């Protein structure tokens, strides 16, 4: 056993891991509850992935279209998620989002305004009404900066550039601490905490074409899995339909859905608006069938049907994929996205300033004059750590999860804009419940043997004489996932992918990072490999089991949704001998009232909501 006396131990009631929108929201609430709160992050404060969110946060504020209501937001979310969402989470989200967005304004966020001086809202895929509170196309920056500037005055301790390696548990199996490494020095530290919140985001860095940064290595999934928590819905990986595809060096970088929300058209090489050919039955009655009808909507007719470009992300991503396969792709193998013909140059620069800038600099293209070229890019994990719908606690007592790293809210496909509001709502709930849990528990001793093992396994990467290059292993992993576990999946591909992953897992045991422990990106990359591999295996194996196509999970050998599969979630946990266990978990029956709302026709629900309002006013 290592001598741990040299290692600094830091104590908090609540420790949050991850400082994006969810982590900061959780830390602010935990601190407000009186808990001594620390927040650990891999990057500097204010740089987390949330900063890259562009379009907005969905909340039924009803500032732009007064017909909006939590029930309709809830219905949209369930339909977008193909009814596989956790019903209670979708209900909480839709009900609580408006207040959380207004609170963000109170903390300093300066949203774009309506003519009446209220928070402005924009259209987005799958949302019935203009619903996304936004600031141009830099809403994520506004969110993270607001939470950061508010958070630094709330007595929260921020630990920057600190990587979490593994959780520590006490004798009863509750979480009691976590081993971390300071990136700057390479020194280790142990945080002791009564409860721990994971807000670690997703794992999109397992794919080659991705909108995710180096941070997205699925740390939360892997650490929770290793500690005995369950993962759920891991087969649902959202491929955002519009990533940049040219030049190659920027392939995958996100092009916000707001381009379509502001009226942008998707065209194939023949100049056809191909989305008209891909409208799913479920959305036929609410989607425009002709260009004339779609034009009416853009002109602001509240009763016009929505253009098909604003169908949910899973549908649009598959459509682009199909067009390219049929030989109707753009010059560099994607689709054309044109806003230049739809809005004035001045409008585009005002509403989509960072898109204008991004294309101008990185692709030398003026989006006010020319169409962009776009294609699907790995973007988001709907699945993640399985949590209790009300408290966000995982199967490991004292361990909570929120934001992208938690499963449930989004089901089989997430609607754009529901992520930022997810961070606010479930970050808050995690913070509140973790603080309450901490009040009822004390600090407990961790297993020193286990802590030593975690540290030794990290340092062995530096100490071994020779071994595999971590960058090359990561590249191979990305290639494997891209090729075998991509947007369209088959049994053969998935099985081949799993075999490749096994080989990579073996090779990764002998990974070697050159150089010393101080700020060594090679070492950091090697440490993340274990997590990426666990996540990749979970995704591939869950995808193999789910023999249907639903939302973001598409099986070419099992096309279409299967009614029977709606009854199950795939749940993953760690078994004996390092074996990954997968099982079909039968879903509980939904609350009948929620089921009624989600399955109502839009006309009936609109009428019901209006009736409710009339009754309230009289």
């Amino acid at each position: 056993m290592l001598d741990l006396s040299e290692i600094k131990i830091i104590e908090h009631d609540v420790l949050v891991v991850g400082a994006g929108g969810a982590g900061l929201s959780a830390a602010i609430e935990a601190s407000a509850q009186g808990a001594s709160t620390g927040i650990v992050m891999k990057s500097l404060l204010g740089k987390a992935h949330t900063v890259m969110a562009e379009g907005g946060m969905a909340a039924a504020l009803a500032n732009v279209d007064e017909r909006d209501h939590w029930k309709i937001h809830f219905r949209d979310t369930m339909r977008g998620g193909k009814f596989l969402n956790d019903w209670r989470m979708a209900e909480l989200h839709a009900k609580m989002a408006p207040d959380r967005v207004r609170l963000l304004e109170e903390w300093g966020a300066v949203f774009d305004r309506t003519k009446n001086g209220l928070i402005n809202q924009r259209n987005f895929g799958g949302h019935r009404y203009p619903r996304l509170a936004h600031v141009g196309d830099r809403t994520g920056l506004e969110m993270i900066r607001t939470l950061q500037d508010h958070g630094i005055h709330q007595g929260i301790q921020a630990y920057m550039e600190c990587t979490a390696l593994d959780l520590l548990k006490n004798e009863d199996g509750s979480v009691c601490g976590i081993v971390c490494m300071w990136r700057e020095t390479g020194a280790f530290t142990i945080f002791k905490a009564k409860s721990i919140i994971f807000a670690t985001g997703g794992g999109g860095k397992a794919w080659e074409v991705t909108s995710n940064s180096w941070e997205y290595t699925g740390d939360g999934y892997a650490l929770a899995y290793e500690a005995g928590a369950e993962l759920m819905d891991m087969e649902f990986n959202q491929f955002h339909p519009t990533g940049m595809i040219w030049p190659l060096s920027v392939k995958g970088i996100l092009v916000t859905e707001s381009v379509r929300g502001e009226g942008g058209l998707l065209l194939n090489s023949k100049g056809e608006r191909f989305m008209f050919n891909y409208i799913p039955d479920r959305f036929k009655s609410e989607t425009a069938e002709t260009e004339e009808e779609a034009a009416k909507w853009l002109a602001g007719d509240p009763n016009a049907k929505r253009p098909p470009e604003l169908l949910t992300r899973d549908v649009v991503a598959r459509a682009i994929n199909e067009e390219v396969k049929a030989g109707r792709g753009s010059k560099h193998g994607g689709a054309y996205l044109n806003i230049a013909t739809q809005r004035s140059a001045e409008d585009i620069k005002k509403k989509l300033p960072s898109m204008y800038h991004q294309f101008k600099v990185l692709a030398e293209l003026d989006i006010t004059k020319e169409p962009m070229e776009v294609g699907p890019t790995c973007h988001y994990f709907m699945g993640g750590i399985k949590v209790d719908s009300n408290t966000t606690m995982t199967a490991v007592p004292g361990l909570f999860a929120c934001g992208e790293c938690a499963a449930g809210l989004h089901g089989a496909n997430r609607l754009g804009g529901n992520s930022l509001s997810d961070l606010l709502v479930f970050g808050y709930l995690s913070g509140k419940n973790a603080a309450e849990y901490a009040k009822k528990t004390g600090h407990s001793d961790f297993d020193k043997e286990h802590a030593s093992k975690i540290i030794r396994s990290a340092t062995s990467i530096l100490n071994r004489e020779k071994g595999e290059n971590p960058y090359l292993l990561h590249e191979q992993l990305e290639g494997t996932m891209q090729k075998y576990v991509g947007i369209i999946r088959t049994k053969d591909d998935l099985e081949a992918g799993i075999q490749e992953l096994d080989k990579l897992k073996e090779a990764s045991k002998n990974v070697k990072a050159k150089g010393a422990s101080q700020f060594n990106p090679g070492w950091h990359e090697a440490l993340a490999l274990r997590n990426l591999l666990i996540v990749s295996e979970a995704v591939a194996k869950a995808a193999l089991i789910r023999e249907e196509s639903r939302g973001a999970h598409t099986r070419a050998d099992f096309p279409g949704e299967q009614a029977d599969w709606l009854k199950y979630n795939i749940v993953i946990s760690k078994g004996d001998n390092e074996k990954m266990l997968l099982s079909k978990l039968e879903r509980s029956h939904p609350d009948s009232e929620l089921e009624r709302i989600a399955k109502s026709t839009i006309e009936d629900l609109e009428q019901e909501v209006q009736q409710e309002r009339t009754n309230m006013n009289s």
Partner: protein
Amino acid sequence: MSKRKFRIYRGEQEHGELVNYETEVKEGMVVLDVIHKIQAETANDLAIRWNCKAGKCGSCSVEINGKPKLSCMTRMNEYSEDETITVTPLKTFPVIKDLVTDVSWNYTQNERIKPLKLAPAAKTEKGYVMYQKDVDRVQEFRKCIECYLCQNVCHILRDHDKKDEFIGPRFMIRVAGLEMHPLDIEDRIPELKEDYGSGMCNITRCCTTVCPEHINITDNGIIPLKERVVDRYYDPLTILWRKFFGRKKKKLPPIKK
């Protein structure tokens, strides 16, 4: 595709040197891509911060041929093929390793700034009422991605190292964003003069020049703040007026029902 030459700073604050590298550069690559390529091929432990790779997070600030830039937004075709490109860390902050500097001083400056305080009366059941024309200028300041390129070129911080006297352009516009928030009722003018060092800036506009978000830091942020300080402390008419009529309250926009 062609082989290009680079010189990259390797080492720490006290011990460091420019090391030569060569690598193939493909169409469309930015300087950060090249650094990543060198990292994967030959220098596994070469340290640089980065996140979004799209100019949104402000992590990858470095000096390229002596000019402060975001390495993710600097295209290789801005330089001629035979030019050796030199990449060094931000000069104003101590080097931790290679291209990574210790920017923690900036975080402590932010904590010194009095937070937003909204007029309670402005709250309605639909949230706060503010008009687009009143928030336009605040939104300009809020575009800041905290890349600290402005802090890096500010000669008060860079050449004179007066970090204890001036919070720097980044935090001047942070203050401007609060002071010009249409519903804020906090008073930060005394701190601007005494603690934040608004008088130190002599308007050379270097900060504005390097801002990747094109925020008009000097003209729209710093100068108006300087004027507010001057109005309060140095304008004899205002001082006289205040003696008789008391301090002017911030005017809030009317609430429309």
